[in-house]
């Protein structure tokens, strides 16, 4: 039973980390990027490539994974977000990020192969350590650290306050002299780095697998919608709830209905409390 809880919590925290990445991008651009899960996938795949194939020490592999994620975040903003937001059609970003996500996923499939490959172990640890295994506590602690770090960043630093200002009202922030384009680019690089970190930390749980991106995009979004768009605490709670629900559902009913149950949770929350558990109820602009 404890194993079920811990493994559910671990995968749930990966979803939570993906939801945090969504939040960082959403705060400055009001865009929910389809590429979010693919950032974490890149972190995992490139981490495995750096450590297993290139035989780098895992610290360098981690830095490499983060760098790849950050570069991809930068690339996303420059290629798929900037022009589209300038054009002002509110649906186009969905198309452009979807296109980019497909390209990345298929590119990785062509280069890395379509089979999940094992992720190297980072610390020397016995394989029989059960619930204390590093593949469980790594994603959990990383997600919690990410949430705490983001909270500190938003409250204590000047750039964090600029992010907050942009998320409140980008137009007013621009009028007060904030370079909104640069802040948006920064937020994408930051979210890319965080996504790469999350994907690297959870690599042993998920394996280095090209199709992970789409699953994470969907489940991270469900965690985000359940917890409330824009709320970091909500992302953690939503991720944990989703992970635990999935784990218990596969414990009781078998693993075939995971996606159905996850979407069921999303539907129930959206019907009962459309803004999510911790979301702010905004007035709908007309």
């Amino acid at each position, binding site marked *: 039973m404890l194993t079920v809880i811990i493994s559910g919590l671990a995968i749930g925290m990966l979803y939570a980390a993906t939801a945090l990445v969504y939040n960082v991008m959403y705060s400055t651009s009001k865009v*929910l990027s389809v590429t979010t899960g693919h950032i974490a996938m890149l972190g995992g795949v490139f981490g495995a490539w750096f450590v297993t194939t290139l035989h780098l020490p895992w610290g360098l592999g981690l830095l490499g994974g983060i760098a790849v994620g950050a570069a991809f975040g930068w690339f996303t903003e420059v*290629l*798929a977000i900037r*022009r*589209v937001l300038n*054009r002002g*059609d*509110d*649906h*186009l970003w*969905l*198309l*452009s990020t*979807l*296109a*980019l*996500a*497909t*390209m990345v996923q*298929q*590119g990785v499939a*062509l280069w890395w192969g379509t089979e999940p490959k094992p992720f190297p172990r980072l610390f020397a640890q016995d394989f029989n350590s059960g619930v204390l295994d590093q593949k469980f506590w790594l994603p959990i602690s990383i997600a919690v650290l990410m949430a705490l770090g983001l909270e500190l960043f938003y409250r204590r630093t000047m750039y964090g306050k600029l992010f907050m200002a942009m998320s409140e009202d980008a137009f007013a922030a621009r009028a007060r002299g904030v370079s909104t384009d640069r802040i948006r680019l920064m937020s994408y690089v930051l979210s890319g780095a965080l996504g790469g970190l999350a994907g690297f930390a959870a690599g042993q749980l998920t394996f280095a697998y090209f199709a992970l991106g*789409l699953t994470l995009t*969907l489940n991270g*979004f*469900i965690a985000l*919608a359940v917890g409330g768009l824009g709320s970091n605490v909500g992302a953690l709670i939503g991720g944990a709830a989703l992970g635990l629900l999935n784990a218990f559902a596969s414990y009781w009913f078998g693993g*075939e*209905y*995971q*996606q*159905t149950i*996850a*979407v069921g949770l*999303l*539907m129930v929350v*959206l*019907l009962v409390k459309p803004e999510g558990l911790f979301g702010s109820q905004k007035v709908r602009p*007309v």
Partner: protein
Amino acid sequence: MTNFSFLLGRNQLALALGAIMVASLPWWAGNQYQLHLAALICVYWILISGLNLVIGYTGQLSIGHVGLLSIGAYAFAILAGKMGWHPALALVVAGALGGICGLALGLPSLRLPGFYFAMTTMAFALIVNELVLAQGNLTGGGIGLPGPIFPAPLDSPKGFYYLAAGMALLVTWLSWNLVRRIWGLGLMAIRDNPVAAQAVGVPLFRVKLMVFVFSGITAGVAGAMFASLQSYITPDTFVFELSLFFFVCIVIGGRGSIIGPFLGTVILTAMPELVAPLAKLGHFFYGLLLLVVVLVVPEGLGRVFELLLERLRPRPEQHQAIEPDLPRLARAIKEQG
């Protein structure tokens, strides 16, 4: 909507020419494989012309129609294959089932804003695949099911092609009827400005739901034809990327027209089959194409042709020669003098 209104005089001619080409295709198609390809295009078009109303006209970005296609295909394969129903009856039931599932999917999800809707439909496609795998004794699980063929004279490739082309024409006619009347204007109003549409009395949710259910029916019918055409279906046939393919066909062709997505379907279906290196790149190519179109011509390739034609067509020059009215001038001078 009348994007090609300059063809108005030649419209009838183009239509007749197209009909002759479609009808005579089995005679000039080089081999059986090209006929199969043409039938596949027709089957895809049955789904896409329904989906075009949802994406192109109403602006609801559904990326999960492969789930409805899969439902239609499995319903047809189970009913006509396992239970031995008549294929025509199974085809009708598959369409109805697609419509019902479209209703079940549309009822909660069409209330959601853009990204939420897209994610819900995507999740629907994943759920359908999951259920197909889970219900192994009904659907054959990962092994799949044989797709039954239609009785004679529709069992030959030529016969099946005519069936598919006929269905495609029927669906095109239905959707064309819808978009050229006030319904189509209502749909486009919802796409361009939902608040304004509501203000002038378009029942937002009901119209969206109706169009979505229609697209569900066409997807179910297309699924049944697809199962029969491919002769064997597995869950791997209905990957999420197929959904993306439908989506790209419409976006590339241009939103808010019928001929554009049709050309998109023909080109995108035929191109990877005829140009071998593209087949290896597979879905990467679709992603790239979508990105280029969205960044460069978000209105779709149809718009490019329109612009080119506008540039090429000589503009009617305005001749307004000014003739001096000499007698009047003479009179005026005389009066002054």
